[in-house]
């Protein structure tokens, strides 16, 4: 088994699932967990056809309104973990509860419905280039069948400071502006959890800082749970908890282990 991590890990797993990696913190017991995983495994086949275990039994519990940074070296499996937590990918074993709903019991249709409760912000913005800023923000609202998609999308763009640029196409916007559109799009669906994959990775430090501020302000105002994957230490410092993915397992940073 996984020698360095197994100790606390196994114990927790055998006793109380709610007291996973996050530690049995008296302060957080009783708070609603938004995401919980148990023995989460993910195996892929590498180029030579050999099975490669990326996640080897990840256990974690994330509570409503928390901001969590997931750290880890390149290739540690951060994105894989993110995809699984968001219901975008299927695990090879173990279970994920998103808002108390076990994902393994859902079909793609059900998972898609669950995904309407999460938002995404990417390093490379991932806007649809042939759609205007407004149309980009409208998209999740429309997919969720919201009849007020037009008004809401406009309001969100105003909120991120792009009210004057709603008809612009992504290529007509700067990197920072594009990321604002992406953030507006992510928050427009009023998500329970917002996943951000290196949201400042493609931006200079000043712009990056403004994006960080925006993200955390909205997170606070909306009461959204924020889960960040990042290398950026400053960004990680903003988060209440820091988890490190190493050798297929998740380790909580000692300094944040006590929780908020």
């Amino acid at each position, binding site marked *: 088994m996984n020698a360095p991590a197994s100790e606390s890990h196994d114990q927790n797993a055998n006793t109380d699932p709610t007291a996973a990696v996050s530690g049995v913190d008296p302060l957080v017991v009783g708070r609603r967990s938004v995401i919980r995983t148990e023995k989460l495994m993910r195996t892929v086949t590498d180029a030579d056809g050999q099975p490669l275990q990326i996640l080897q039994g990840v256990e974690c519990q994330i509570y409503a309104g928390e901001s969590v940074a997931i750290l880890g070296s390149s290739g540690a499996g951060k994105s894989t973990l993110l995809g699984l937590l968001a219901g*975008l*990918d299927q695990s090879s074993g173990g279970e994920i509860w998103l808002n108390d709903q076990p994902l393994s019991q859902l079909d793609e249709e059900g998972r*898609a419905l669950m*995904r309407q409760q*999460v938002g995404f912000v*990417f390093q490379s913005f*991932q806007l*649809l280039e042939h759609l205007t800023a407004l149309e980009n923000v409208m*998209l999740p609202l*429309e997919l969720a069948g919201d009849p007020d998609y037009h008004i809401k999308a406009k309001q969100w763009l105003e909120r991120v400071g792009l009210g004057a640029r709603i008809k612009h196409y992504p290529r007509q916007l700067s990197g920072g502006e594009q990321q604002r559109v992406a953030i507006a799009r992510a928050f427009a669906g009023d998500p329970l959890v917002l996943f951000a994959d290196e949201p400042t990775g493609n931006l200079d430090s000043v712009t990056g800082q403004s994006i960080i501020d925006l993200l955390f302000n909205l997170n606070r105002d909306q009461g959204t749970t924020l889960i960040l994957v990042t290398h950026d230490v400053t960004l990680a410092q903003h988060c209440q908890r820091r988890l490190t993915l190493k050798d297929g397992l998740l380790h909580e940073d000692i300094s944040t282990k006590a929780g908020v």
Partner: protein
Amino acid sequence: MPSAVLPTSERKLQKPKPVKQWSMALKLLLREWRSGDLNLLFSALVLAVMTVALTGFIADRLQRGMEQQAAQLMGGDLVLRSSRAVDASWLTEAETQGLKAVSSLEFTSMVAGDEGFQLSAVKAVDSGYPLKGGLELEPILDLESSELKSASVSTEGALPASGEVWVDRRLLSALDARIGSDIEIGRELFTITRIISKEPDRGGGFMSFNPRALIHFSDVEATGVIQPGSRVRYRYMFAGDMTQVDHFKNWLEERLEPSHRLLDIREDSPSVGSALDRAQRYLQLASIGAVILSGVAVAMAASRFARRRQDTVAVMASLGFAAPVMGGIYLRLLLVLGFVAATVGALLGFSLQALGIQAVAGLVPIALPPAGWEPWVLAIGTGLLLLIGFASAPLRQLRNVSPLRVFRRDLEMTTPSSMVVYGLALMALVVMIYWYSSDARLTLWLTLGLVAVLVLSAVLTLGLFYLLKKVGPVLPMRARLAVRSLYSHKQTALPQVMAFGLVLMVVALVALIRNDLLASWQQQLPENAPNYFAINIQPYEQVEFTQRLDNAGIRHSPLYPIVRGRLSDINGLPAQQAVPKDAREDNALHRELNLTWHAQIPDDNQVIAGRWWPENIQLKADDPVPLSLEAGMAERLSLGLGDTLSFNFTGQVITGEVTNIRQVNWDNFQPNFYVITPPGVLENMPQTLLASFFLPEDQRGLVAQMVKAFPAVSLLDIGQILDQVRQILQQVTMAIEVMLGFTLLSGLVLLLAAVKNSLDERLREGALYRTLGASGRMIRRIQCIEFIILGIVAGVLALLGSELTAFLLYRNLFDLDYSLSFTHWLVLPLSGVVIITAAGLWGTRHVVSQPPLQVLRAG
């Protein structure tokens, strides 16, 4: 001795060595090959070349096969017909030019046997006859019986010796003679030694109405039949390879006199000629269609490949290989790939053709001659042309990739100017179409048609997309998203919908023309097309003749009255003087023409100028006689509406005025007439009747009975000619089926290329949609709506395009009647939707199966 490492300050910038672009290209090719990104480009090229090679080989072999057969019907590759003997030096010249030459002489003469006389078509042939095919003779053993035997032997260059005559069974019956009997032709006595069962170059024409007697050329003089002014026909037949024949033809053409007529394969037997022509046009057109489809597929695959290689080039550029160098390397890579693909395609085409022809060898009775080298050049040349025309422009753009792209992914390479892209493609197309068809008119029409269809469909499609966008907001969610996706992707959706439309259009067109061609041939030569003509039926024999046929259950045509008359005057002048100089030797002025009367215009005839007379026309004594003239004769003699013609019927003269000109279908083996009058003009002239009927194989015995019962009636067996024509049509039909299949295949490849072309974008968008809360099923539904819209638009475009092109082609190239078909209007848009939706959904099936984050990260 190893040199010491220099301190950094002393290191100089080395002069860059020129990059070995060719060897880099080869190395890169192997790597790219493994990546799989070249698969589509390679398949599109291979398929294009394979199609062209296959058509090329089949068309070449069929062409040779058909020419061989047509040459057999005619007696040589080139035939010179003359009413006088030509200078002997012409034959010597032919032989010097490497051709085989042989002469024959035909005349009509009374042949006398012990039991009677018979007007016969005597043919005198020289050694070497026949140049093409072989005479078939009945076995001598069967001679005692009067039964017709199907068993026969083919001669190898054997001919009647001096003093011998070979006759056909009709003459034998008419004279009640047998092998060994003596018969008289003119002053000379001949002994019947063989019975001819098949004569390869019997052909049509008036001479063939009479039974055949074949003698040696050297015996003609002794018969004394040939006198100055005698009606004789010399035929000089030449054979050799096509270039020699063409060369000699040119030589002859400079020396021709008005009394000469030069025939090549196409002119001599119109029924075969037009079938050949149309088939050839079809093959050309279908392969042009297949190549256009493949060309577009190549273009789409190449532009996808170029887009996917921007990063590679940017990285290499940032490492010191300038983008132009990398672009050059990729162009070389493309060239090598093209050469490999062209060779593979040509080899595949050749093998498929060989296998295919072997597989149907049992069905096609004639062994096809092997193909020449030309298809190889054509196929490989096509591959390279396709590359230059369709793939080089997108790949050249790789030279413009900015190394900055390494940092900024959004820096796209400049898209090539559409003038360059379309200009190059158009040029390649024009070159290819002209190369395949050697027909400037066809090239012009096809190119113009194609450009018009493309521009028109671009405008229509964009307009439609715009309209859809306008109504978008009121649509339900999935349709709204689909419409927005289409409109916002118009740059990729437009070529896609046009490619889809093109596929449907070409396939529909190729299928449409195939059906109509086959139907027209079927109609021209149905299973029970009349295989016998009966001429010289006397009016008093009419009832009995009909009865005999009816009693035997033989289907026959009505009996057409024939009145023979000579065209004596035109507009009051002797006919000879009234016509232009070069028409003075025309047959129509030198023999009696067959005239008939009709109240209605005969089937298969079409008035092209003037008007047909009213059905109940009653001519009074002083009324001018209206005449209906056959178009070809009118043209040859420069006759038009309003000209007055006088005909001499053994003393009686009737003058009439041309009131209409008729197009006659000479392909259908039905009795046709040059000049027709209304009823009430010719009825009192001496006349005979003509009928055609179909005699099944097992009732051949009837011929002998009929010949005995109606000794004056001539029965002409055209079954042989029909069979030859049928064989040719069979081969052509096979070629057409094969071509249709290949056009379909090219269409499929283009469909997939077009779908793949938007695949990268769709993969990314699908992934993104899923992160935004869409389920796989919802994405599939949105895509489905998109493809349905694309399918409808493409179907409608294809419908308009194919109807327009069919309309132009039918009239101008295939001589077919064009008519709108309603099934077409229903089937095309419908099949467009089904095919494109199916292909689209299949081609994009990975969009919902790949893990979204993996796709988004890679992008």
